[in-house]
């Protein structure tokens, strides 16, 4: 019998809110799927859309980008800039056929450990149902380099 599919998900999070939220989920002993690899950055303003492309290039099945709620940015407005960028990039991804369920954006504060755990649970489930990102994986395979996350 074949193994059930376990998606690889990369989460780009800001250190002040979402990372702290993830930390809170951990210290609260909340359970969430181990499918997510967290990459911590100083601010959502530092999360370039190229990070998302890099994650897919390395074989990710899904990507989460998350940071402080509007108004709560440690640097005051990094997330407002990020939001505009996400709006444009998200539109581009959809237009080029990257399915909506593969790239998610969220605001998760340092107090929202539960929201973090539940979100990881739900996006993991959604991508598990959708299956591997085969169209992208095929392009990776054609390059002759092995994908790894």
């Amino acid at each position: 019998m074949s193994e059930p599919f376990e998606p690889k998900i990369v989460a780009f999070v800001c250190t002040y809110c979402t990372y702290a939220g993830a930390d809170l989920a951990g210290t609260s002993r909340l359970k969430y799927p181990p499918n997510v690899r967290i990459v911590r950055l100083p601010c959502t303003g530092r999360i370039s859309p190229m990070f998302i492309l890099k994650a897919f290039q390395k074989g990710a099945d899904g990507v989460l980008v998350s940071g402080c709620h509007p108004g709560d940015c440690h640097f005051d407005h990094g997330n407002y800039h990020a939001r505009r960028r996400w709006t444009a990039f998200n539109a581009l991804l959809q237009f080029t056929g990257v399915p909506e369920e593969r790239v998610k954006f969220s605001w998760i504060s340092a107090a929202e450990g539960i929201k973090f755990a539940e979100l990881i649970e739900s996006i993991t489930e959604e991508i598990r149902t959708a299956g591997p990102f085969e169209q992208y994986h095929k392009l990776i395979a054609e390059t002759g380099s092995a994908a790894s996350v």
Partner: protein
Amino acid sequence: MSIQEQYRSRAKELLREGTVKMVIGYGAGTTPLRRRPIFITSPDDADRLVLDAACRTNLAGYLLREGLLADQKSVAVFLTPDGVRTINILAAESQLATEQVIVLGFQIDGENARQLEGTRVADFSGIIAERKKKRKEQPSHEVARKLEQMTSVERFSFWEGEFSRCIKCYACRAACPMCWCRRCVVDNNQPQWVNTSSHTLGNLEWNLVRAFHLAGRCVECGNCSEACPVNIPLHLLNRRMTEEVLTAFDYYPGADEHQEPVLASFRKDDPETFIL
């Protein structure tokens, strides 16, 4: 006097009286339907200028040639309203000073080139405001509408097919007046974000990065699509981005020279329908 004659004598005058040190315009190309950019510095050469419906290239980018504007002298350029928008964006991005630019404005209406009144980019703000209004009402491209109807799998396949033909010649980048970076991010190798090889994955990455970096900056002049040797419909990507910044942020690139770049500014109440 034909419009071409009018512009020739205007160019001549500008050069003779020393208002500008150079006129950037169109000259005869290799076939009757082609034009090529020419750079005129002597009044006697102004008669080489051509102005007709075949003059479609956006010439604004030539102003950024290394050192051209360094002496603070002025240059006159043949520009359509989209060309003027280009100058506005370049000024907003601190790439040039509009005081150094004299506009030889024209517009193509069907088979004819028509004169546009104005000398400085600011003189065209009315026309540009008008274009913004029209752009908002313009339906998306027919092919784009078809794409939106498809499933994401079909859309991905469509673009996979298109991008598979890309040969990474970067002609689209070279032709774009907005691609002024000395070092493009795709040429960066520490870290190397984008595959430099021209396999379909590398081509997809390149084209996504290109389209994204032009979001809210592209004036839809068509230089890139025109330059692409394998006819990738780059305009579909550019147009989609323009429509996004228009609907989400009411932003029309190049409205005036003081307009903040859309991705370098924000409003606290920007829409965020897709954020969880």
